[in-house]
């Protein structure tokens, strides 16, 4: 990734955003049609959002089969609840909020799917010293490995902000916490990531 790009240019990385800019039917319109039982509208909405919802859920539950089961449940809820959607938030925000609720329900039923922070912190290649690890692997690979090693709470907020492009307000709505807490939670997620990176031999000079 070109680190010199501006925030605006970053949008060009996302094909889905480009798609949304040219899509023929806004999500809100599809929801209105789904509320009237339009299956085609449901198919369009599913096609437009299911990959991102799947990835969001998969990062939380870490099991593909469970994530696949969950996305059909998420969109079934959309089918059932479309008439209650008031358009106060983006449809994608609504979808992620439903997905999060369902993923957390699964995690409560199957706690073995969650990786606690102690386990996450222990993720490292013990066969090499940190210096050797740096020589063998690309820094980017290690960052991604450490991103996967974060707790579900921290993975969730990092994904929502960086990948799903949600604002402070939208994250607050999805996660159900105050906006101030969203900012601090993101800060501590990044701090935890820095600690994991340090344990892998990457010292970034922060925090």
């Amino acid at each position, binding site marked *: 990734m070109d680190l010199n790009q501006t*925030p605006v240019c*970053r949008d060009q990385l996302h094909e889905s955003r480009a798609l949304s800019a040219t899509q023929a039917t806004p999500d809100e319109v599809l929801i209105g049609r789904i509320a009237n039982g339009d299956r085609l509208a449901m198919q369009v909405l599913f096609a437009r959002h299911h990959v991102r919802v799947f990835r969001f859920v998969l990062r939380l539950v870490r099991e593909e089969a469970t994530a696949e089961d969950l996305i059909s449940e998420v969109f079934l809820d959309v089918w059932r609840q479309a*008439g209650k959607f008031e358009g106060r938030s983006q449809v994608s925000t609504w979808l992620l909020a439903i997905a999060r609720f369902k993923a957390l329900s699964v995690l409560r039923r199957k706690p073995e799917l969650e990786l606690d922070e102690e386990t996450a912190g222990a993720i490292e290649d013990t066969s090499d010293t940190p210096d050797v690890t740096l020589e063998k692997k690309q820094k980017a690979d290690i960052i991604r490995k450490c*991103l996967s090693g974060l707790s579900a709470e921290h993975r969730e907020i990092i994904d929502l902000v960086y990948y799903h492009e949600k604002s402070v307000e939208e994250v607050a709505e999805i996660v159900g916490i105050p906006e101030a807490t969203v*900012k601090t939670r993101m*800060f501590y997620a*990044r701090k935890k990531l820095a600690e994991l990176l340090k344990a892998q031999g990457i010292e970034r000079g922060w925090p």
Partner: protein
Amino acid sequence: MTANKNEAETLPEDVELLLPWHAAGTLSRRDAARVEQALANDNELAARYELVREELGETIRLNETLGAPSARAMQALFAKIDAEPARKPRASFNISLWLTDFIAGFSPRTLAYGATAAALAIVLQAGILAGVFVKDGGTGFTTASFTQGTEGAYVSVRFNPQASAADMTKFLADNSATIVGGPAAGGMFKLRISNGTMSDQDLSAAAKKMSANPVVGFAVPAH
């Protein structure tokens, strides 16, 4: 998931907390300007911002490697939908969503989600509200077309894609017509042209007259 115990520690300035959203391009214009100014005046903050962008890039890459669900997910969804009880068309609906749907039915060349669309929405909303009554003490709206037993004379119309918002508004006003439904298949809108009933002959004549208007692609009597 519970809140992190470490979250009671000392926090940096608000502008530093906003760096991830600045990198993602999801800040308001005002906050983005505030962050930009801070970055320009603080080299240390600018260095931290580079770390944020590094994280952002790798988070995107990580998610993009996750792949996509199999067709099983969609099959399961529609099997469940098929098992749902049949749904009756709603008797009421959200007027703002209806207007959005209405606007979405036009050609992007004519209404490109811009000022023209906004102006049309305002004008049409005024017109539509004349044919709409508040239901259940103001908890929602119901159009006359969705009310069983309402009398009136109706035509189905498809507007010319090249017609402007002003043209369509004038057409509705000239014909004392109110949009009460649509867009249906083929971009058809249902217009009420009279509150009373009309003979088939008069209705056909009215539809024929409308068809001759350049704003309209074609018009046919509707019931």
